[in-house]
C-alpha cells in the first residue's frame, strides 16, 4: 500500500539525515518507528507528509507516486495525528473534527451530507458523542488527543501517521488511544505509521517495528524479531533487558546495574 523506495531526506545544505530508506506497509497494518532521539524518525515523518521534499527515491501509495502532489491531494491520502499540540481556541469539538475534511471542501468550507456522515462516524468511533458542542480548550489532554484522532480519521486517507501520539498521556489514555487506533486500522483498513518512544507500547500494539539508527533502517520486522537485547542495547547505547512474560509478551527494561 505505502511504499518507500530508497528515500533520502535532509535539511538545507547539510548531509542526508536519512538515506536509503525502503519499506512497505500494508492495509490494516500498524508499523512503529523507534530509535534514539535524533535517529531521523521525525525527519522521515516530515518526508512522508510532504513537509520536507525528498532528496532522492520515491514514495508511492497504491502504486501512485506522491512526491509531486499538491497539499490538497496529499491530505486525501495521508492523515496526520501530530504530537500533543495546543489546539486553536474558539472552535467546538465538532468544528475541529470537521477541519479534517478540508481537502474535500470548497473555498468556503461548506460541509455536505456525505461530509457530515463521515464526521458523525468518526465521532462515534472515538466516543466523542457527548462532547461535540463543547469548546475544544475545555477538554482534557486525553480527550483532545481523541479529537485529533477523529480529525485525522475524517480525512478518509488510507494512510495515517501518528507522531508520538501518547507522549503527553497517562498510562490509561496511552493504552486506550492505541487500542482505539488498532481498532480503526483493522476496521477501516487503514495503514498506520507511528513514532513511539515507549518500547513496551510498541511491542504491544505494533504489527511490525522499524528501528531507525544513524539515518538508516537498522532492522525491521515483528516485535519478536526486532526487540532483541543486543540490538536495542546497541542502538540506544544503553544496556537493555528483554523479558518474556507468559501473558503480556515482551517486556523491555533498561539495565541499571543493580544485578
Amino acid at each position: 500500500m505505502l511504499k518507500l523506495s530508497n528515500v533520502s531526506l535532509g535539511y538545507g545544505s547539510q548531509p542526508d539525515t536519512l538515506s536509503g530508506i525502503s519499506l512497505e506497509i500494508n492495509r490494516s497494518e500498524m508499523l512503529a518507528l523507534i530509535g534514539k532521539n535524533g535517529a531521523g524518525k521525525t525527519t522521515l515523518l516530515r518526508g512522508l507528509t510532504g513537509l520536507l521534499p525528498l532528496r532522492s527515491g520515491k514514495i508511492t501509495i497504491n502504486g501512485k507516486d506522491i512526491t509531486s502532489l499538491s497539499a490538497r491531494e496529499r491530505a486525501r491520502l495521508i492523515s496526520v495525528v501530530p504530537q500533543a499540540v495546543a489546539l486553536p481556541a474558539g472552535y467546538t469539538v465538532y468544528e475541529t473534527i470537521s477541519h479534517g475534511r478540508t481537502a474535500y471542501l470548497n473555498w468556503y468550507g461548506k460541509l455536505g451530507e456525505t461530509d457530515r456522515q463521515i464526521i458523525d462516524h468518526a465521532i462515534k468511533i472515538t466516543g466523542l458523542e457527548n462532547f461535540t458542542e463543547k469548546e475544544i480548550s475545555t477538554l482534557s489532554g486525553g480527550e483532545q488527543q481523541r479529537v485529533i484522532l477523529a480529525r485525522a480519521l475524517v480525512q478518509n486517507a488510507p494512510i495515517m501517521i501518528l507522531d508520538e501520539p501518547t507522549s503527553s498521556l497517562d498510562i490509561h489514555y496511552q493504552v486506550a488511544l492505541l487500542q482505539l487506533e488498532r481498532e480503526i486500522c483493522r476496521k477501516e483498513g487503514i495503514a498506520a505509521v507511528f513514532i513511539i518512544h515507549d518500547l513496551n507500547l510498541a511491542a504491544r500494539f505494533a504489527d511490525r517495528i522499524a528501528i531507525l539508527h544513524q539515518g538508516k533502517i537498522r532492522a525491521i520486522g515483528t516485535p519478536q524479531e526486532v526487540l532483541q537485547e543486543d540490538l536495542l542495547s546497541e542502538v540506544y547505547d544503553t544496556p537493555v533487558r528483554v523479558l518474556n512474560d507468559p501473558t503480556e509478551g515482551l517486556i523491555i527494561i533498561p539495565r541499571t546495574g543493580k544485578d
Partner: protein
Amino acid sequence: MKKTKDITTILVIALAAAGLLGMLLGSVSISLQDLISVFKFRIFGLEIPQSLKSTDTILFMLRIPRTLMMILTGAALACSGASYQGLFRNPLADPYLIGVSSGAGLGAIIAMSIPWQYSRLSVFMVPLFAFLFAIAAVFLVFNLGRMGGYLNITGLLLAGVAVNAFTSALSSVWMLISGIELKRSFSWMLGGGGIAGWDRILITAPLILIGIIGQIRYAYPLNILQYGEDQATQLGIPVGKVRIRLIIYATLTTSAAIACTGVIGFVGLIVPHLLRILIGSDYRKLVPLSLLGGAVMLTFSDILARVLLAPQEIPVGIITAVTGAPFFLWILNRTNQAKV
C-alpha cells in the same frame, strides 16, 4: 448560530443609526426634516429651493462623502485587523501595531510631496505608494518578529514598535524637508483625513472592495491556518500561497483606507477582538462581521471627533487611540493570564 444573527442585526441597525447621525451632526447641525427634504428634491430631480441650498451643499459635498469614507475605512481596518490576527495567530496584530499603517503613512506622505506632472496622477499615486510601503513594512515585521525562531507575541510587538518608530521618524523628517504643508500632513498622520471628496471615494472604494472580497475568499483557509503551518499543510491547505495572498489583500485594504483618511489605529484591534469573544473564532463569520463592526465604530468615532470640541475638529485617529489604548492593555492582560 442564533447569536451570530442577533449580532448581525444589531450591527446593521447601529450602522444605519451611525450613518444617519453622521449626516445630521457636525459643526452645523442639520434637522432630520431638512435632510429628508433635500433627499426628496434630489431623488425626484427637482430644483433645490434657496433655503436648502447650503444644507444640500454641506450634505453632498461634505457629510455624505465623509460618512461614506468613515464607513469604508472602518470596515477596511477592522476586516484586515481580523485577517492579520489570524495570519499572525495573535490577538494583538492590528494594522497599526504591526507597522502596516505607519508604513502606508510614510508611502502616502512621500507620494503627496512629489509634484506629479498631472495633478490627477497624485490621486492614484498616494494609494499606490501607501500600498508598496505597507507591504514592505509587514514583511519586515513578519521577519523581524520571527527572528528568535517562531513568531510570538513579544517578538511581533517589538518588531511592530521598531518598524513604527522608524517609519514615523522617516515620515516626520520627510514632512520637514520636503516642504509639504505641515499642518495638513500632521493632522493626516493622526488620522484626521477629513477631506474626503467624491473622487477619492471612487478610487478608494474599489481597492477596498477587492481587498475585502479577497479576505472573505480566504476566510476558511485562515481557520485552518490557526493550527500552524505544518498541520495546515497536512490538512490540505497550500500554506505559502494562502498566506501571501491574504497579506496582499489585507494590506491593500488597509493602505487604501489609510491613503484616504490618514493613520487610524485600534479599530482593527478592538472590533475583531470583541466579536471573537461574542461569536468565536470562525473567520467566515468574523471577517464579515468585523466589516460591519468597524464601520459602526469609526463612524461613531468620527461623529465624536466633530462634536466634542465643535467647531474645532479632533482627528478621528485620536478618538480611536484614546478608546483603543486602554482596551489594548486589557487584551494584553487577558492574553497573559490565559498563558499562565
